Structures are given as C-alpha cells and as structure tokens.
C-alpha cells in the first residue's frame, strides 16, 4: 500500500492534517478572543479613559480613574469584602469538601445517590439556586426562621434578618457561595483521593497510625497538589464572581456585602460610569495573575509527582 500511495499522497497528508487541526481549533480561539479577549482589552482601554455610557468622549486620562476609585469609601469597603468573602468561603469549602470527599470515598449503600445529591448545586443554574436561597433566607417567609422559632431558639418578634443585617448578610452570602462551590471542590479532591495508592494508608495503619494521624500526616500532605489546585481555582472563581451577591443582596445592606465584581457592575453598567467600572474590575488583575500562575505551576507539579 505504501508503494501505490506514491509520493504526492505522502506529502499531502501532514498538510491536510494541519488544516483540519486549525479548523477544529479555530472556534475555540474565536470564542475566547471575542468573548474574553476583546472585553478584557476594552476594560483596560476604558480604565484609562473618561468613557461613560452614552457619551462618546474617550480621552486618555492616565491613572485618574484609579486614583478616584481608591478615594471612594464604597470601593475600599468592597475591596475588604472581596477578601473576607473569598478567604472565608475558601476555608469553608476546603474543610467541607475534604470531609465530604473522605466520607464519599468508601463504599456504602446509596453512595451513588449521595454523590449525585452533592453534585446538584454545581449542575443547577446558580441564579436559580441563589433565588432559592433568597427565599429560604427571606425576611418574612424564611423557612430557617420558621424552624428556629418552632424550636424556640429565637423569639417570634425578634427574628434574624438574614439578608438585612450587615454581618448576617455577609455570613449568608459566604455560606451560599460555599454551598455552590462545594461540589466542584469535592469532586476534585475525591478524584485525588481515589488516585492515592491504597496500600499507603494501609501501611500507615500497620505502622500504628490512627484516623487523624493518617489524615493529617499522610493523606492530606499527599493530596496537597490537588488541594492547591482546588483552592487556587476557588480563589479565582470567587474573586471574580458576583452572582450570589447580586441575586441575594445586590451588595446591600449599605454596601456591606458589596464585592469588587458587583461594585464594578453597579458602577460601570448601572451607574453608567464605564471608566470607573473598568478601573474597579481590573484592579485585581495583577493579584489574580499571580494566583493563576501559581495554579498552573501547581497543576504541573501535581502531574509530575
């Protein structure tokens, strides 16, 4: 066959393969360029301009937008909130998903069903989930309060306003965001756990280690690359996400749950100050770039070891 195929066919084959490769690759490239690359570049352009919705005047204003944004107390509040929101939800997600993954690792009756239930928050559209939580935590119809009252844990006339009091509102959005990220993190850690050689925990058992020692000195250190990936992914995802805050509190009360992405949206789109919104939204880019770099390095390390 090689003989009859001849010279031309042989030479053509790599080039046609290359064309096909480009064709397959192109939609993804176009998608990323148009929907991520262009807006990202526009955000940089706007951040250094005086652009507002409706006015065409795009003058270069240097770092003026950043300077005025930094003066703004709402921005400072949102910056602090972003860190609180991200760090506390990530701690909760890591602890919770590690515990869940450990519980779901071993076989038991109905494990498949439980795994499915835990994955649900990830599969369901997040806005739906957040609206559900908004009702669960509603000031009048809250089922949580109803239960608390029925159990006589709170008085009927002094019920907590989950989304109406600054601290409670922050706790609520953190918990809902945790609820939402938990499945993804659990799946990553579960995959890491099942990939650990089975005889290592057995060796630890024979060596005399109990559950906690095996967990903290053997299992978790061995899972570290995986945990790092899960955590860094969660950090980026949380820093840049506003859905839970937007749906549940719209940043309120009094900006007490405002985070940078939601503030950027309210300032730039709803407040029509595109330039300030852009400045806010790219404020975290340097920080996130470092996180993304670390994440890629960790992912690579996880692959090697």
């Amino acid at each position, binding site marked *: 066959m090689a003989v009859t195929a001849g010279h031309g066919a042989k030479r053509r084959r790599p080039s046609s393969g290359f064309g096909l490769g480009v064709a397959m690759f192109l939609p993804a490239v176009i998608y990323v360029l148009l929907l991520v690359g262009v807006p990202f570049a526009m955000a940089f352009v706007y951040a250094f301009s005086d652009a507002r919705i409706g006015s065409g005047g795009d003058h270069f204003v240097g770092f003026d937008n950043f300077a005025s944004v930094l003066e703004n107390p709402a921005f400072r509040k949102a910056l602090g909130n972003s860190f609180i929101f991200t760090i506390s939800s990530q701690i909760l997600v890591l602890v919770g998903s590690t515990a869940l993954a450990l519980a779901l690792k071993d076989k038991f009756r109905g494990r498949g069903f439980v795994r499915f239930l835990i994955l649900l928050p990830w599969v369901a559209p997040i806005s739906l989930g957040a609206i559900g939580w908004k009702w669960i935590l509603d000031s009048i119809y809250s089922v949580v309060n109803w239960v608390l009252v029925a159990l006589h844990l709170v008085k009927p006339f002094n019920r907590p306003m989950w989304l109406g009091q600054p601290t409670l509102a922050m706790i609520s959005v953190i918990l809902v965001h945790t609820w939402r990220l938990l499945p993804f993190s659990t799946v990553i850690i579960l995959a890491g756990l099942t990939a650990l*050689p089975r*005889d*290592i925990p*057995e*060796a*630890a*058992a*024979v*060596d*005399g*280690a*109990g559950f906690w*020692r095996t967990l903290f*000195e*053997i299992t978790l*250190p*061995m899972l*570290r690359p995986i945990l790092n990936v899960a955590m860094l992914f969660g950090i980026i995802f949380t820093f840049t996400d506003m859905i839970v805050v937007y749906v549940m509190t719209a940043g309120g009360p009094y900006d007490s749950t405002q985070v940078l992405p939601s503030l950027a949206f309210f300032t730039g789109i709803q407040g029509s100050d595109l330039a300030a919104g852009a400045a806010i939204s790219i404020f975290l880019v340097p920080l996130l770039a470092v996180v993304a770099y670390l994440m890629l390095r960790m992912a690579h390390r996880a692959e090697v*070891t």
Partner: protein
Amino acid sequence: MAIVETRAVTKVFKAGTLGAVNDVDLVTEEGEFLVFLGPSGSGKTTLLRMIAGLEVPTSGDILIGGEVVNDLTPRERRIAMVFQSYALYPHLTVYKNIAFPLKAQGVPRDQHKKKVEWASGLLSIDHLLQRKPRELSGGERQRVAVARAIVREPSVFLLDEPLSNLDAKLRASARAELEQFHRRVGTTTIYVTHDQVEAMAMGDRVVVLHKGVVRQIGTPKQVYDDPADTFVATFLGSPPMNLLDNGDVIVGFRPEHLVPAALAPSAAIKLTLKISNVEYLGSEWIVYGRPEGDRAPDKIVISRLPTADLTIGTSHDFAVAEHHLRFFDKASEKRTTARALSWP
C-alpha cells in the same frame, strides 16, 4: 516475638463464590521464617492481610501470641509489614519514613534518632536518611521499607512479595540479606511469594497454597522430596516432577532422577525415550523425550542431566531408581503408598 496461629480461617469476598482462603489451619514456631508459596490467586496475600488485620476473616480465628486478635486493629496487633510496592510515604524523607511508626506508637521523641540509626545501620541505608523515596533505587526502597518495619521491634514480621519488584540480580543479593537479617533479629516472619526458589532458599518451612487451600506444610526438603499431592509435585521444581499414569495410581519422579540407564542402580524402572528436544542451560541439560512402547506414549518426560550428548530424534534408555518414585492416588491426586508398577 510471638507465635501466629490461624484456626479454620476462611475469607469469602463474594457470597456464594469459592473463598479466597478456605479453612486454613496453621501454627508458626517461635522465631520461624514461614513462607506462603502459591501461584497468583492462591490466597496467600489475602491470608497475610488477614493476619495483618487489613482484611477481616469471614470465619475462623487468628491468634498472635496466644491471643485471639480478630477484632484488633493492625496497630493493636504489634505486627510490621512490608508491602509489595513498599508503600513508602512519598512526601517524607527516609528518616521520617522510618520514624513514622515510632511516632505513631507514641515512642518518646528522644529515642527516635537512636532507633532510626539502629534500623538504618542494620540495612546499610544510613547515608540515605535525608532523601525522598523517589530519589531511591528499587533496592534502596526495599531496604527502607524493611527498616521502617523493624524499627519498633515488632513481634511478628510480615512480608508480601518484597523482592518481586527488583531485577533478578538484585533479588538474589536482597534475598541473602533478608536471610541474614532474619538470623540476626530472630523475629517470627511470614513471607509471601510466588517464587519457589525464594521459598526454598529462605523458608524454615513452606506453606504451599492453591485456590485458598493449604496443600502442604513442611520444610523445603519435605515439600520438594515428598510432595503431598500432584499440585505440590508440579508447582515446586523447575522443570516440574514427571507424572505418569499407571493403573489407578500416578507415578512421579523428579527430572534429575531420570538418568541414563547405565548410571541407574539395579532396582530401577527403565524407560526408553525418543528425544524430542534438548536445552543447554550452562550448568545442566534439560532433555525432553517421549517414552517408547505403551508407557504413556503421548506424554513428554523430562530429564535433567549434568552432561548430555544426545541428538534429537534418537532413542535412548533411561532409568529411575525405585526409591525415587512417588505415588499419587489417581482420583484424589493425593500421595499414596508405594506399590509395584504394572508396567511390562
């Protein structure tokens, strides 16, 4: 040190199927090196894991030092185990790997250094203490695994095919080291292997397992010279024992006992073989031949000779001394008493 005993131990993984281990009774002697030998799937590793406490017996009792340990965790059994993969902790240095059992068992911290140095010195790995497992060769990993197992001076030492991941040359030297090591520490040791050479060389006694059943327990000499059944007869020895049907018995003899007729004593069974193949292995020759006449005509009979100048296709007279013949019952395949042969 302690004696390990199993009483009617059975492990069934899936109800309704044949057990991986069936009704195994055995008792080690104090300080003995006992080898579980069997092909893969014979249940030897499962049996070891039940002794270690990593697997729960379906029925039966396991005793260590006279005490029933069925409900004790591995940590409470005071055993140490070397895994086939060594199962070193990849994120810890060699030092920390060896010190881990001490830490886990609550040995005071100030004694760790001394004990780790003792164990690593015994296995000559003291220069590797600061390395991570991935920086070690296979042989070094195996020694670290042994050092980690002995560091807290266990009462019983379990080894699951610890040499199977080493190359042939290293395996021989590591085997010799393990033997010496056992002589020095004298801990009761149970060693699992599928390699009959390892079993014969190392074991004080060998437990031959097949399909979860103990076929024979005995010294290497006993299991080799006086196999209890045809499985043991053919599993041990390479090439295996020749087995020929003769009426209601099976007659067996080792290839090295089938010699040219001129060299055999007078009380011998003669066999004329048409040579079908000859292999030269350096120190010996393996000769394959078909018996002529009606003595098991389709059977290939193997002879193992120090020298052989035989041409394929020619016929030669061979003979086996009568005292080398072993007899097995044809129905049960178990060893039976010697009797006169009905060969012409």
